[in-house]
């Protein structure tokens, strides 16, 4: 609804309410100005005022719909009430019945005309309310537009006519009239209802409005004709009445003059006896009754006149009989007699009476005429006024119609001009468009022809190629001419042909505009390519056709298949691997689980997929693993852990979990380590057992060691004592009995002494060796170069410094200085000892650093050894040379081995008989502190 219409409608409704309220106030205060505007004219009835207010309220509610739902039915209820008031009032008029609704609120004290129903609204108002009631119910209903228009036009017209015309015509009965304020109220209400309905303004054509306008004019003119004919009739009647009155006056005058004739005739005859006088008398006597009869006839509808005529007639009779008697007396007797009669019978009063009555009759008629004439004049004046106003109304209406037509015509003309202009523009545009289209056509043709993808158009009915582009000919191998003689079936395998027909049928049935799909096409050379087809329907040269775009996806498909195969392979791997794999979405639902996971989780795959973790493992929120899920979800970090999981059935299992954030949520890899854990527990138990065993063994070892110590003690103590005795007593023999012994005796004694000495050193070495086992290793940094040099110098002295040494800087080592000193001493002693016999004894000492080890080697150019016996070198008391060749107990290398082993090193030797030997030992390469 446009804003202007709405404003008009609302304003009109508000003014209507104002007018009605004024009338109601008038009823309360008995103020006729408020009730009728012009005091004495028709009032606005209380019911009318009320109904007008209700109508306006319905309209206002229509414009401002109440928010409260219970209020929605209010307009309809009010409309029905308005309709019923109108209807009941009409029924009252028709059936002359009183429903007691007229003075329901107020007593109407006004009683002006005979046909007046106190407090009842005019039937015109009642009819109006019936129409309006229906109209308000059908507000803005498109189907009711014609109805709305006509009743609104009707009400407006009638109210206007009433307002400007009828109120001036006193002849029109009061009760059908409308009060001034009522008429205005109805006009405003009609305007308000009209402008409340934009539908009406749209639906009602100008022609209909025009017809309605002309109809109104015609009705007005008809009304004017009716009124004018009514008033001409009245005018004729008036002139007739004047004639009639004149006739009456005339007749009355005639009667009076005849009476005079009778009197004078009879008198004259009596006096003169001349019979000519008698003639007058006789004529008058004969005519007077005719006149009376005529007069009687003329005033037959007027009883007082009739009564007067009766008395007149009687008086005339009296006069005539008196005059007759006088005449008779003259004739039969004489003048005296007659004079006597005249003198005695004073009949003058009769004539006077006649004169009086005729005067009365004449006066009465004249009065009546004057009265009627004044009435007529008044009526004519009011009519003339109404006539002029109504005529003015007709002219105004005609003027409005003319203006409307003119306006309409000018609007149409303007529209026509506009249309022509638009047409011209359109034509121009069409021309431009055609050009554009042609250009565009060319462009698209170019695009079609030069498209890098094969394209063609096929006839939908015959599947014949209608057009193909160059790329199609290049890719498929057919020439354009060949293509145009083929159908789309010709580029397919037999099995595909059927498939195509079916799917095409379906496609056509479904009327799909676009279709897509992967098809196998055959090139001219017979190779099959996979193509992705995009097609849509079009009209090509007036025929239903299909535009097809073909994209060779053979390679893509292959790649895709490869990808799928690879995906399959990975999926197969994932599905079948021993580790459980699962993907959980951000909504905590299982998106993927493999068989192992299902087995770990103690559910079937199907039971898990789509369900949430919490559904399947109630109570997991309280478990230690739950925060790990959350952490992986929220912080998107990988987490690896071992966890003992408690299943809903309270069983437990150990799992190694790897939580990884993935785009879908989190991926969890799980390994069932329950068995491993069990094994670990067993190992732990075993270890504990082992430790106990070790402890037991250690204790055993300690006791063995103690035994060994006791043994060593007794060896050193108990073996040395007798040895010392042997050695000592042999010495005593040598000292005290030297002279007693011969040479052989002395030699034998010496043998005893030598062996005693040898045994002593054997025991000492053995003890030293055994002591090594118990001695703890005190590690410190050792300058090996200095140590070796010192030892060599010391040892070299024993052979008179004959040996040469070849030594570079040696790597420092970490070890027990005393023990390593022993090793170096033993090895250098050996080297010197076994090379002493050669011409140029030479000892070479070297060191080497390898991964984690320091290798020291001591080589000599001595007698060497047979590698076959190399394994015996480091055994206790194991010797490769006799004591006669080289001194020694066979413990030195055993001690070397023992010390090196105690330092976590290794020893070995390389040698060749007569070509020297090399002894190696290693020490762990500790960082030197």
């Amino acid at each position, binding site marked *: 609804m446009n804003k202007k219409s709405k404003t008009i409608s609302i304003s009109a409704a508000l003014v209507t309410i104002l007018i009605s309220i004024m009338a109601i106030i008038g009823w309360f205060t008995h103020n006729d100005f408020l009730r009728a505007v012009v005091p004495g004219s028709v009032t606005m009835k209380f019911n009318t005022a009320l109904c007008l207010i209700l109508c306006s309220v319905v309209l206002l509610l229509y414009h401002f719909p109440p928010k409260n739902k219970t209020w929605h039915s209010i307009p309809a209820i009010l409309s029905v009430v308005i309709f019923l008031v109108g209807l009941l009032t009409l029924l009252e008029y028709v059936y002359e019945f009183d429903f007691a609704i007229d003075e329901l609120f107020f007593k109407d004290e006004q009683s002006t005309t005979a046909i007046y129903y106190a407090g009842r609204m005019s039937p015109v108002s009642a009819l109006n309310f019936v129409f309006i009631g229906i109209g308000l119910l059908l507000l803005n209903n498109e189907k009711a537009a014609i109805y709305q228009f006509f009743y609104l036009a009707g009400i407006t017209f009638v109210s206007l006519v009433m307002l400007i015309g009828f109120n001036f015509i006193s002849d029109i009965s009061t009760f059908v009239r409308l009060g001034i304020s009522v008429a205005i109220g109805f006009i405003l209400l009609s305007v308000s209802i009209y402008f409340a309905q934009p539908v009406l303004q749209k639906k009602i054509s100008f022609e209909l409005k025009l017809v309605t306008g002309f109809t109104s004019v015609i009705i007005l003119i008809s009304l004017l004709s009716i009124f004018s004919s009514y008033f001409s009739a009245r005018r004729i009647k008036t002139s007739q009445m004047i004639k009639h009155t004149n006739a009456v006056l005339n007749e009355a005058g005639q009667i009076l003059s005849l009476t005079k004739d009778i009197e004078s005739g009879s008198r004259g005859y009596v006096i003169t006896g001349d019979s000519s006088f008698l003639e007058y008398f006789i004529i008058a006597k004969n005519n007077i009754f005719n006149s009376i009869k005529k007069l009687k006839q003329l005033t037959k509808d007027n009883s007082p006149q009739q009564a007067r005529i009766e008395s007149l007639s009687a008086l005339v009779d009296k006069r005539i009989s008196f005059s007759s008697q006088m005449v008779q007396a003259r004739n039969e007797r004489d003048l005296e007699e007659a004079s006597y009669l005249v003198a005695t019978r004073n009949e003058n009063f009769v004539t006077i009476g006649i004169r009086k009555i005729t005067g009365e009759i004449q006066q009465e008629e004249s009065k009546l005429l004057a009265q009627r004439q004044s009435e007529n004049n008044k009526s004519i004046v009011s009519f003339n006024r109404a006539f002029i106003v109504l005529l003015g109304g007709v002219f105004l209406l005609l003027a409005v119609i003319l203006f409307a037509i003119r306006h309409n015509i000018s609007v149409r003309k303007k529209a026509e001009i506009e249309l022509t202009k638009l047409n011209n523009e359109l034509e121009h545009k069409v021309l431009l468009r055609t050009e554009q289209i042609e250009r565009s056509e060319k462009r698209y043709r170019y695009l079609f022809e030069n498209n890098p993808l094969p394209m063609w158009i096929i006839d939908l009915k015959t599947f014949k190629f209608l057009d193909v582009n160059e790329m199609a000919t290049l890719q498929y191998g057919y020439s354009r001419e060949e293509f145009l003689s083929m159908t789309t079936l010709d580029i397919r395998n037999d099995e595909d042909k059927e498939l195509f027909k079916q799917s095409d049928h379906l496609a056509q049935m479904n009327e799909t505009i676009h279709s897509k799909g992967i098809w196998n096409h055959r090139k001219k050379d017979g190779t099959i390519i996979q193509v992705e087809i995009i097609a849509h329907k079009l009209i090509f040269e007036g025929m239903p056709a299909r535009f097809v775009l073909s994209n060779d996806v053979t390679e893509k498909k292959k790649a895709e298949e490869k990808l799928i195969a690879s995906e399959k392979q990975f999926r197969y791997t994932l599905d079948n691997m021993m580790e459980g794999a699962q993907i959980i979405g951000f909504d905590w639902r299982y998106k993927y689980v493999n068989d192992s996971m299902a087995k770990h989780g103690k559910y079937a795959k199907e039971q898990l997929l789509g369900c949430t973790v919490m559904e399947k493992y109630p109570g997991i929120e309280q478990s230690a693993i739950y925060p790990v899920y959350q952490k992986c979800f929220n912080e998107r970090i990988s987490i690896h852990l071992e966890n003992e999981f408690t299943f809903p059935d309270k069983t437990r299992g150990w799992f190694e979990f790897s939580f990884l954030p993935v785009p879908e949520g989190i991926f969890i890899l799980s390994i069932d380590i329950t068995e491993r854990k069990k094994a670990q527990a067993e190992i732990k138990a075993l270890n504990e057992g082992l430790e106990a065993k070790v402890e037991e063994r250690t204790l055993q070892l300690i006791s063995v060691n103690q035994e060994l*110590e006791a043994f*060593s*003690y007794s060896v*050193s*103590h*108990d073996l*040395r*004592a*007798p*040895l*010392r*005795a042997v*050695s*000592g*007593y*042999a*010495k*005593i023999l040598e000292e005290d009995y030297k002279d007693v012994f011969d040479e052989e005796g002395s030699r034998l004694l010496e043998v005893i002494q030598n062996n*005693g*000495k040898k*045994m*002593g050193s054997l*025991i000492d070495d053995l*003890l030293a060796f055994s002591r090594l086992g118990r001695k703890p290793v005190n590690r410190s940094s050792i300058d090996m170069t200095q140590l070796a040099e010192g030892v060599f110098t010391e040892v070299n002295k024993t052979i008179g410094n004959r040996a040469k040494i070849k030594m570079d800087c040696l790597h420092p080592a970490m070890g027990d200085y005393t023990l390593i000193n022993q090793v170096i001493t033993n090895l250098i002693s050996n080297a010197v000892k076994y090379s002493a016999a050669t011409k140029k004894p030479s000892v070479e000492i070297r060191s080497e650093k390898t991964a984690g080890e320091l290798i020291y080697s001591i080589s000599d150019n001595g007698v060497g050894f047979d590698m076959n016996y190399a394994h015996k070198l480091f055994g206790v008391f194991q010797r490769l040379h006799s004591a006669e060749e080289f001194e020694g107990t066979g413990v030195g290398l055993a001690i070397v081995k023992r010390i090196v082993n105690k330092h976590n090193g290794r020893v070995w030797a390389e040698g060749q008989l007569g070509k020297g030997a090399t002894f190696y030992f290693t020490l762990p390469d500790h960082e030197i502190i």
Partner: protein
Amino acid sequence: MADTEVEILLVEDNLNDAELTIRALRKGNIANKLFHLKDGVAALDFLFGTGEYAGRNTINRPKLIMLDLKMPKIDGIEVLARIKGNELTKKIPVVILTSSKESPDMEKCYELGANSYIVKPVEFDNFKQAVSDVGLYWLLLNQPPPF
């Protein structure tokens, strides 16, 4: 020999060793006032005037005690402990003469207050040398403690 004149008290169960020791000392001319006891019991009885030597005037203390460790009945360590644990005898220099090189013995002896610890060499020349050196040192070079 009168016990009052005892200068060296040799406690040795091995008679051979004892003889060799005495010979070595004699060769060095320092064995004149040597008294040999064959076990620990006898040694203690002698020093404290008990048992066999009851009534001996214990004020007459030897100038040097040469003590073997491995002995029947009461061993050398026990004897050493008793000597060093008694006010009467604790100032007497005690030289341990033993075949044992075992460190526990040596440690124990020093702990108990042994004045020297000599491992008897097997070879007689060395043995003789060692014993006569000990005798010379303790009897001639060393100033005995005042009693």
